[in-house]
């Protein structure tokens, strides 16, 4: 078959982004996190991400975040050109502090969630999502 130029480029870009992986959380993402936390210390635990280990379609990856007792949760796609994905704010009447959405990923990267808890403290977690060309399943 003829890969169209567009498909090939799309594959090439996705894969090229993969090769920049070792940077993990990049500078732009750290800036977004600092803006959200105001530079406060960020702990671990108390917030969870539900995401596929390998994306079925990098253009629409279902992810969920949950942090019981949170006032807000920030989601960052660390490897995207614009890492800021969303901030979910939870009012006092919210039944559960969880949300799910679909995001586009430029390539394999870490997704980071930072939760602002009711007492003003911050916690974070991350999940690696792989975006692959695919094929060759045994």
């Amino acid at each position, binding site marked *: *078959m*003829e*890969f169209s130029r567009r*498909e*090939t480029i799309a*594959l*090439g870009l996705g*894969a*090229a982004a*993969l*090769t920049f*992986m*070792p940077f993990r959380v990049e500078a732009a993402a750290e800036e977004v996190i600092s803006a959200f936390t105001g530079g406060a210390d960020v702990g671990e635990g108390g917030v969870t991400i*539900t995401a*596929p*280990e*390998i*994306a*079925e*379609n990098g253009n629409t990856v*279902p992810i969920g975040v949950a942090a019981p007792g949170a006032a807000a949760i920030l989601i960052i796609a660390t490897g995207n050109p614009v890492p800021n994905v969303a901030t979910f704010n939870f009012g006092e009447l919210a039944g559960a502090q969880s949300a*799910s959405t679909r995001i586009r990923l430029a390539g*394999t990267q870490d997704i980071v969630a930072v939760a602002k808890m009711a007492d003003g403290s911050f916690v974070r977690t991350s999940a*690696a999502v*792989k975006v*692959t*060309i*695919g*094929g*060759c*399943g*045994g």
Partner: protein
Amino acid sequence: MISRRDFLQVSMATSALVGASGFGNWARLAAQQALTQDQLLDFDTFGNVSLIHITDIHAQLKPIYFREPSINLGIGDAKGQVPHVTGADFRRLYGIEDGSPSAYALTYSDFTSLAQTYGRVGGLDRVSTVINSIRADRPDALLLDGGDTWHGSYTCLKTAGQDMVNVMNGLKPDAMTFHWEFTLGSDRVAEIVEGLPFAALGQNIFDAEWDEPTELFKPYKFFERGGVKVAVIGQAFPYMPIANPGWMFPEYSFGIRDQNMQKMVDEVRGMGAELVVCLSHNGFDVDKKMAGRVSGIDVILAGHTHDALPEPVLVGTTHIIASGSNGKFVSRIDLDVRDGRMMGIKHKLIPVFSDVIAPDPVITKLIDDQRAPYKTELSEVIGQTDTLLYRRGNFNGTWDDLICDALISEREADIALSPGVRWGPSILPGQDITREDIFNVTSMTYGKAYRTEMTGEFIKIILEDVGDNLLNPDPYYQQGGDMVRTGGLGYRIDVSKPQGERITDLTLLKTGEKLDPAKTYMVAGWASVNEDTEGPQIWDVVEDHIRKQGTVTVAPNNSVEVIGT
């Protein structure tokens, strides 16, 4: 929940009483060259529940040869652990004598000569005899099919899986999970599943649009066996839309979803399950990791990666059973379940030596009926081989080399790419190659052989990408296939490096020059997951090539250098 220590003590007491797996006995008897059906099937019935596991049949209705891999690398924590042990190391690990039937069944060494001594393996009529014998001991034994059943042969392709459905229905399974079945397309899968007289399971088969469980595939099914409430939870292949063409089944989403697996285990335990069995198509290393993250599964029946292990692997309190592929093995697992928990296990990996185990005539007739309309096409001799043709292994097998040769010469390409699938029986030197044999290693619903230009840089990206699906140290990021096979192209791979740094020294073999990242090369390949792939079917390309050769000889392939092991 019983502690790991309690459990091990219980298991060990059981072992001392009845022998852990029965495998040691079988190996000894086999070494005496006195292999009989009675010995292969010999098993002192144990406990109160029996499971029969068969998986990854890949539509092999008739006996075949199947050579196990010579290279099966374990990465990270899996290094040196089963199933990543092959050949002499494998024999030493399990106390198997060189040249014995078990050496032939489980390792690759001296394959050609041992195959001539011990003959073909598998055949679903022989499998039926094994199942009948277990059912004679324990009539309510559960027969569980791990999937990759409705794919892999000429008749299966031509009947869109119907031949396998008909024959498997004759064996009367109790439940099944899935992988390649979905490449029949979602309409056909739905049509078959709606009529199945047994459970179609997959806790990780979700509706793609709403990301919620489907109506068609249930997460689990309860059975009452020997007074025990048994829950069987299905786990389909997690990476279906990535490893296979997602456009053929756009309605479905998969993934490992181990949090949902835990939820299902808790749910069935809450409903009174005394024994929880996971019928899985995760692949062995993914199952091992899942067993460490999900608590409460007693037995995982593993599939996908085609490993055959003579003893269960214990992770915490979960026993993982690997039952091989292509109808070559059937596992029998007897369990003692008392006071609401599993107290002991006895297991035997039964090799289906087709010259030793008598065929069940009812199933033989059923198989012959499926094949009858295609008899002429199936049996046509296309050529002969001087070389043992096999596929299994992390890098090129001789079947793949032959397919790549066909792509390069028939499609006038510089470089050929062939998928690293793990199915496909072997052909011995001196044997005829029939059309059926070619379909056994190529048949699929997306088999068109493409021809396209790729830059040196893009070829490296493909190799790095596929390499990471095999060699990522975290099993959850592996897809369970082997490395893409290359023709006309040599390279060095450092398996200890991360993605992007594993592949070096890409060499165009016909000139001996290093691949230029900026230059374009003509590449022929097959099994693209992209829709609208164009080209002739791969089996026609291979048939034309073999016909021209008459007798094929595949030269030893040293074009891939593996380092960092």
